[in-house]
């Protein structure tokens, strides 16, 4: 599991979505982590995986959420709305019906 800052996480998530735009699955999971021995601060743990690679980042305060949220939505919008390929339709050429004049 690669733990990174919010900016780097967003870039890596973008590359995950890019690699799997035609096939495969990408999961993004959010979980709250409370204060404890392992984690002195409480906050939101965000993880992403394609089944093989795992990335994560930890957001401790609500002020960082205001910076992170638009970046996350921008990436999701770019890949979810722009990643679906429509099947290409083959255009049939119109048959020209020209009559030959015979004299």
């Amino acid at each position: 599991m690669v733990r990174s800052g919010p900016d780097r996480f967003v870039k890596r998530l973008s590359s995950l979505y890019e690699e799997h735009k035609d096939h495969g699955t990408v999961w993004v999971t959010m979980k709250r982590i409370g204060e404890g021995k392992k984690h002195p601060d409480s906050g939101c743990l965000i993880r992403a995986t394609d089944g093989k690679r795992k990335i994560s980042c930890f957001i401790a305060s609500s002020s960082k959420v205001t910076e992170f949220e638009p970046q996350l939505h921008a990436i999701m919008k770019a890949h979810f709305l722009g990643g679906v390929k429509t099947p290409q339709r083959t255009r049939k050429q119109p048959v020209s019906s020209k009559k030959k004049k015979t004299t």
Partner: protein
Amino acid sequence: MVYLEWPVFLSSVQNMFLNKPNKTRYSVKYKNGKVALKVTDDQECLQFLLDPKYDFEKLENINAWFLSNMSRLPTEQSSV
């Protein structure tokens, strides 16, 4: 797979998180142009299937809600 209606799903997941904030996890699964939202507290599982072309705003709203509530301190968490 049982997928709920949006109003039922939204209110149910918010109640689930407010009851068990440290147990509840929220996942967004993207596959073949479809997005599946899943929220579970290891006892109950709530799912919603959405088409991002038409329902992207719903995805933004629920992402924003979970991000802001999960990163807040316990005393600062607000209800819907």
